[in-house]
């Protein structure tokens, strides 16, 4: 009887202890998990600390895109593949080197490589950074801040804001830029001095007479300065309140004819000697206003080639056989290049969709090159930096030969 009672007591005690032991095991497991998590975190931090050079930092960023275009006057094709790696290197907190390449395919399957910019940036103080090298032109907003494919809301650049348009592309020289508070408001500035642009001219026959006409202002930053005079300019931006930025830009300098073509830019290139120079002036204004999911932008740029002399001598060996014109030109037809755009973009709330409308126009001194461009688009944002664009683009030239052209454009763009 006593044995039986003892058994019952032992069983009862075991039953009482087991849950406590199980609870203790759970507590141990929880603690072990927490210690393991902490250990992993410490190891991660130790690894990060060990691999990091505290003075130098290197980072590769960039963007890329693939495009498809189908116009009513051509055959639909995947017409562009490009990648633009950007390398950043920083030393402590006062020096940064940054460079962007652009690699893209050509129509015949080749590859084009371009140096978009390469500069050493010194942060002199909280309001001033000195930028030395080749940099994107600070005239206006589109070229310096909005042209990357993952940032540009539409597939194409606005009329006049690409190569050969009215907006300057890049410059080689020195630039001071930065920002400063104005009470509760903000302002920013950029001022540069550089080698300046050059001019491309065409020799053409007009009503029996041969004349030299400035066809294009070449504003890709270059490392020589044929006229020996520096150009300078800059932009001042003002942000009176959150969401609104207003900017004004200007540039001034001299420009020399360095390239000449017979009959047009697609004609044979002529070997020339040039000693003249023309006045180069550019002005611009831009704005951006953001309110909730709506963003409005606009920009105007005017580039003017004014008074001066051509001083262009043609090498006779290089002239077309039927050329009967002079071998020297003292003067050239000059003019203005103007471009503007207005753009509205609206992100549809709670969806990854964004609607874009843009209208833009380019005016040049040359009949047949002026056009307006209207774009309606729908963007799908897989992520803030991964975007699929669907655009319907309408181009309307001032020439009946080029006429109107409507194109469906698709693009997948990403930033990294």
């Amino acid at each position, binding site marked *: 009887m006593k044995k039986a009672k003892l058994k019952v007591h032992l069983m009862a005690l075991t039953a009482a202890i087991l849950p406590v032991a199980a609870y203790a095991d759970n507590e141990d497991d929880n603690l072990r998990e927490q210690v393991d998590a902490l250990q992993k975190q410490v190891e991660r931090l130790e690894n990060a600390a060990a691999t990091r050079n505290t003075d130098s930092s290197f980072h590769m960023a960039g963007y890329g895109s693939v495009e498809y275009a189908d116009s009513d006057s051509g055959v639909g094709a995947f017409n562009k593949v490009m990648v633009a790696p950007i390398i950043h290197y920083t030393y402590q907190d006062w020096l940064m080197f940054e460079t962007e390449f652009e690699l893209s395919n050509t129509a015949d399957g080749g590859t084009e490589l371009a140096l978009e910019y390469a500069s050493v940036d010194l942060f002199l103080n909280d309001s001033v950074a000195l930028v030395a090298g080749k940099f994107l032109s600070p005239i206006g907003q589109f070229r310096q801040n909005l042209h990357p494919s993952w940032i540009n809301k539409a597939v194409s650049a606005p009329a006049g804001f690409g190569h050969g348009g009215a907006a300057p592309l890049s410059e080689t020289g020195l630039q001071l830029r930065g920002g400063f508070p104005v009470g509760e408001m903000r302002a920013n500035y950029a*001022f540069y001095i550089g080698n300046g642009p050059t001019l491309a001219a065409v020799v053409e026959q007009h009503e029996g007479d041969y004349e030299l006409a400035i066809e294009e202002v070449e504003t890709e930053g270059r490392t020589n300065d044929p006229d020996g005079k520096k150009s300078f300019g800059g932009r001042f931006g003002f942000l009176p309140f959150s969401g609104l930025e207003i900017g004004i830009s200007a540039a001034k300098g001299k420009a020399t004819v360095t390239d000449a073509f017979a009959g047009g830019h697609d004609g044979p290139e002529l070997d020339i000697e040039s000693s003249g120079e023309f006045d180069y002036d550019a002005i611009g204004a831009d704005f951006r206003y953001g309110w909730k999911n709506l963003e409005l932008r606009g920009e105007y740029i005017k580039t003017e080639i004014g008074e001066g002399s051509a001083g262009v001598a043609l090498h006779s060996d290089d002239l077309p056989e039927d050329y009967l014109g002079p071998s020297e030109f003292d003067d050239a037809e000059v003019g203005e290049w103007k471009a503007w755009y207005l753009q509205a973009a609206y992100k549809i709330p709670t969806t990854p969709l964004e609607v874009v409308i843009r209208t833009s126009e380019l005016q040049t001194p040359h009949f047949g090159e002026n056009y307006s461009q209207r774009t309606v688009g729908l963007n799908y944002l897989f992520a803030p930096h991964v975007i699929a664009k669907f655009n319907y683009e309408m181009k309307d030239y001032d020439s009946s030969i080029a006429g109107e052209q409507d194109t469906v454009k698709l693009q997948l763009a990403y930033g990294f």
Partner: protein
Amino acid sequence: MNISKSMKYDLFVASIAALFLAVSIITPTHAKANNDAVKGAQKWADNCARCHNMRDPKELSDEYWETTVNHMRIRAGLTGQDARDILAFLQASNTPPEKEISKPVSINQISSKLSGEEVYKSSCIACHGSDGKGALPGTPDFTNAKGPLNKNDEELLSNMINGFQSPGSPMAMPPRGGNASLTDADVKAVLGYIRATFGK
């Protein structure tokens, strides 16, 4: 003395360059002010959206953000202080809350020396807005009946103290809204203010 037009031109350019360099040299370099993640949140939204969509702070490591913010300082014409504040916010948001080891939160705290309204206006308003509807994309709407105030106090306090990212939001709220000086009692006070002001 006759000065040619081109020489005047060069002198003008040289004068402006010299002026800027002089200003650069006489201004103290790299003012070492405190970096403010709370101000950085607002500056991040104000400035990044000037050009492009706002990216998720967790896309880049803290080290890469340092370089990227330097790049953006040049591009956007930011002041050094603005850039440092934005970096502080991005790095604070970049640290994911460790749910497994987050500190348990008790709502039975001593009372705060600050009112909930004071805490909200100093540390929360930049992202959540004066109307509680969210000043930045992805910030939840406190006034939405199905919004975050549906959760109980313990969970909300834990999120506020340890940091939290709303589902689908491109940005995370850093621990204590990025203001490490806030005590648990301050956080409790501001939660009371948020419930009283925006709760439905």
